[in-house]
């Protein structure tokens, strides 16, 4: 067999050159790591959350080569040359992404643990389908579990972000002013 293994048990380090949020990264990681572990532990990008580690919650969602995936089930050995977008890559310079602003405005985050996965999944949806209906939003987010909000504020926020991105007026959030007051004077 003339295949050269990328990693072996005796050579436990993996050279991983890939793109994260548009920036090239070149690092050496433990070869058994998942993409989630590399992002959090080796790159310090702790926005991507570490939930069930088994594909059952969606907290670790990232966009990899344009597809929404679960980083807890992507082996780092399969990442060289690929391009990942995490929640840290959503903001545009100093500006929040409309999804982030709308999540804040609509109270779509309570404990916040599911929020990065929700934001990334919603971005993946709106990038492909800027006119997503409420039904399509619910379907696209059906791989992300939220134990706090009951989802309705999340769907509201994604709908509102869709309108903002399309340049349409967004409805005011149906929330007590204290929530709006907490988003930096908006």
């Amino acid at each position, binding site marked *: *067999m003339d295949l050269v293994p990328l990693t072996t048990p005796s050579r436990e380090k993996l050279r991983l050159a890939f793109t994260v949020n548009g920036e090239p990264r070149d690092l050496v990681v433990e070869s*058994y790591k998942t993409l989630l572990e590399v992002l959090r532990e080796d790159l310090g990008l702790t926005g991507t959350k570490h939930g069930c580690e088994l594909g059952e919650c969606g907290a670790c969602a990232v966009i990899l080569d344009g597809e929404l995936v*679960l980083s807890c089930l992507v082996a780092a050995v399969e990442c060289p040359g690929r391009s990942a977008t995490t929640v840290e890559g959503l903001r545009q310079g100093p500006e929040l992404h409309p999804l982030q602003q709308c999540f804040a405005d609509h109270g779509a985050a309570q404990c916040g643990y599911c929020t990065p996965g929700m934001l990334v999944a919603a971005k993946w949806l709106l990038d492909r389908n800027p006119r997503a209906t409420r039904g399509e939003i619910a379907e696209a987010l059906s791989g992300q579990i939220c134990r706090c909000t009951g989802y309705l504020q999340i769907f509201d926020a994604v709908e509102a972000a869709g309108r903002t991105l399309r340049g349409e007026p967004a409805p005011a959030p149906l929330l007590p002013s204290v929530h709006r007051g907490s988003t930096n004077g908006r």
Partner: protein
Amino acid sequence: MMRLPRFRYLAPRKLSEAAAALADLGTQASVLAGGTDLLPNMKRRQQTPATLVGLREIRALRARSGDPGSGMTLGALTRLSEIEHDSAIAANWPALAQAAASVATPPLRNMGTLGGNLCLDTRCSYYDQGPEWRAAIGYCMKKDGEICWVAPGSPRCWAVTSTDTAPVLCALGAEVTLVSAQGERRIPVEDLFADDGIEHLTKKPGEILSAVHLQKPTPDARSTYVKLRRRGSFDFPVLGIAASARLRADGTVEEARIFLSGTGSRPTNAAEAVAFLAGRKLTDEDVLREAAESIAHVARPLQNTDFSMSWRKQAAREFAARALRNLLP
């Protein structure tokens, strides 16, 4: 933290290289497709292959050929989300699009492949647990232990086939190609499965499932898939019913095929219901009810998945009737 165990990783670019690697390594190696079944199982130490043979660089496994007019071949790495959103598949083999769309969640369908779905490990509530949990019960026959907790006197494992596309592909009379260093063979999907929770595939360890072949549908062909599970997303089928049929204009069944998921170690063939239906009118509510009863009869629940057994028996009747109704225009 649940880390993956250490493994060696190979990234062949050709199917022949992958087959040669597997011939060398035997049961020490597993192929890695989307990883959505294998990686959770490795984290829980249910499977601990020393080497992973990654298929993702093998372009031939993504190929698609043919068309609805002649029959279609889908490469094993075709992702479930591609199948779910394919208009030609939805129009000609609707049950396959429905089954793909019902698997797991959107991100898992973006990762999970058709080949991986067919080769999915069997499931059991005593087996799909973390290492400490399984250690606490002294493991079981399927991995590291001696006895079966579902049927303690049993000489075999009763872990359950839980793939959504397998019963559909059986009902559609589809075939698969298996490639090894020795050559290749093409078999009906039905023959890929064996009635054993441990040795649930007839595929040999050195064989790679390379493609799925869909037969050209006849103009009067109908197919459907209905799935019982606790939540409308995430969950594996507790019962999946795949049915395909050719119906005459007056509702008479010319030919039918019905297979179930979640009811045994391999897809269950509801052969008695099929024999009963042949030549009878599905538009006759009594016929439909009797056939549904017969399907429910073979949907024998075991105590190693979700829901209570008695409720599942009742639900099986209802779901079988739903599937049969879906076959009517």
